[in-house]
């Protein structure tokens, strides 16, 4: 009996971990380049847009480069695990930044824009299936991660998130991310193209992330180093 219980526990554990990995796999290839747009919308409807290029490798390496607007052009960020640096072209130097900061303003912070794989940062605490949806409660692996707890609603058919509630360590709801508009990006990448967020901390404000292009691409590990942070544009070549 004990043996059976252990087998069930083990299987659940493996399945749970695999589910987060499956979600990660669905959202972006292990090594890929991404073009996406960030849109901040104010309560009066005025908008500000940012166009970003991102390169990703493995589960914990990412660089971002602002392509538009001109005032932000050349700004780039590097994320290696929980380490994050910002390169300011005018200063010609990289400085450490925190994942809770926002380099664009609005509801998205740095860790939302440069999100690592869920399976890298979180462990599944509980899992519940209902109709065509799975509800996952996941807990941060350590206290350096931006959100302590996530409650994820996952579409069973596509294994992609539909909604994610992000909580602080004091169990305060910081923001909710809504994944929308399932789209085929080619190369067997089918995922929501739009992530919309709202936050009780920013009443009336809304931020939207729209994926325009996701392409598998191989990068060297050296592309994700501090020394190359000023040369992210070269990765597009």
């Amino acid at each position, binding site marked *: 009996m004990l043996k059976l219980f252990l087998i069930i526990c083990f299987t659940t554990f493996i399945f749970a971990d695999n589910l987060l990995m499956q979600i990660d796999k669905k959202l972006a290839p292990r090594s890929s380049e991404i073009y996406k747009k960030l849109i901040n919308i*104010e309560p009066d409807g005025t*908008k500000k847009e940012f166009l970003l290029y991102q390169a990703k490798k493995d589960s914990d390496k990412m660089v971002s480069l602002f392509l538009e*607007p001109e005032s932000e052009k050349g700004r780039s960020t590097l994320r290696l695990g929980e380490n994050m640096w910002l390169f300011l072209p005018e*200063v010609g130097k990289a400085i450490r930044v*925190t994942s809770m900061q926002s380099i664009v303003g609005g509801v998205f912070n740095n860790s939302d824009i440069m999100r690592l794989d869920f399976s890298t940062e979180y462990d599944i605490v509980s899992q519940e299936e209902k109709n065509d949806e799975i509800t996952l409660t996941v807990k941060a692996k350590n206290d350096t991660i931006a959100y302590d707890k996530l409650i994820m609603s996952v579409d069973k058919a596509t294994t992609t998130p539909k909604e994610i509630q992000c909580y602080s360590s004091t169990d305060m709801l910081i923001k909710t991310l809504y994944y929308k508009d399932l789209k085929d990006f080619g190369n067997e990448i089918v995922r929501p193209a739009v992530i*919309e967020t709202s936050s009780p901390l920013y009443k009336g404000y809304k931020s939207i992330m729209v994926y*325009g292009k996701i392409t598998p691409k191989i990068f060297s590990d050296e592309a994700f*180093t*501090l020394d190359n942070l000023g040369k992210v544009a070269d990765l597009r070549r």
Partner: protein
Amino acid sequence: MQKYFLVTCLYSSFMFADDYSFDFKELEKLDIKTYEYNGYIKGEHKYQNLNKASSSFPSKDKSNMNSYFGEAFFKYKYFYDKFIFQTELAANYENIDSVEEDTYTANQLFINYKYNENHQLNLGKKTATWGKGYFFNPIAFVDRKKDPINPETNKEGYTQVNYKYNKTFQNDLQNITFDAVYLKTTSDFNEDFYNQNSNTIAFKTYLLYKDIDIDFAYLYNDKLVNKFGVDFSTNLQTNFEIHGEYAKSDDGLYSYLLGLKYLTDFDLTILSEYFYQNDELSKTQSFWDNRYFINKFTQKEPLDILYFSIYYKNSYNLDDKSHQNNLGLIYTKIKNLSIDFSVGKNYGKNSSEFGSKLIDKFTWLQVKYSF
């Protein structure tokens, strides 16, 4: 009522559709070209109240003056095979109390050759930007001295040969980058670097070890003193970073800084740096004394006003207790336009560093347009 409902629905649908649009033509226009460029134009106005107690005051003999500054900055990169040609050009105009001057500078002008992911060579005029400090950089051995009042301004580099080695690893030592720099100094070549007619070789080794940035720097000059330096930077928590630098030269002079950056949960960034140098510099230079403590507090989006931040900066001379204060606001809502407005005041005894400055208080406006 029905009409109102219909209009609301139409408006909402329009907003909804528009929010999610991603025009692929936008990506097409970002086609990769053999060149890249960007830049900015900025204008500044300073209204300055003069300090009657300053020794420079008799030369002015009036209560206030106006100063105007303009800068056009252009950065250009050209790509050819494994080579990149890069330049940064700046044209500056200043009008300080009706005394005009303009300067034209090539801040950088160099060729980069990338042999592979690990080996690179740079040849030409280049800024190195060594060090982890925000206001001070004791280990910036091959850079022009940073101005703690304007730490983010573009700096002119030195003409050099720079070899760079970069390698990543999958263990506690995640990355190592090695820099070797050679500079020749003559009466008309890098003439303000160190001393005339000398040769300098400088090395820097960067390590990312267990999530800590560490640099070791060494400078050898065949005529003057050699220097050694070390710096570090790491995050103690996601919202709390610490950094430090230490530099020592063969003649016994040394300087160091300790700094931190802390972000509160209500988006206030606190940036603090303590700086010490055991040598007093010439009083004609800024920050000439031994000990300084600089604090900058930046509140992002106060009152939920997006693209708006306010800041307060205090530069304190711990030896003579004089200090400079700036209170300002930055607004960036308009596309590609940044507006920075601040007021400042110097405090201290008449003989102190900031108390003896010609400027007592000022208002400053900077408008910058990027292209």
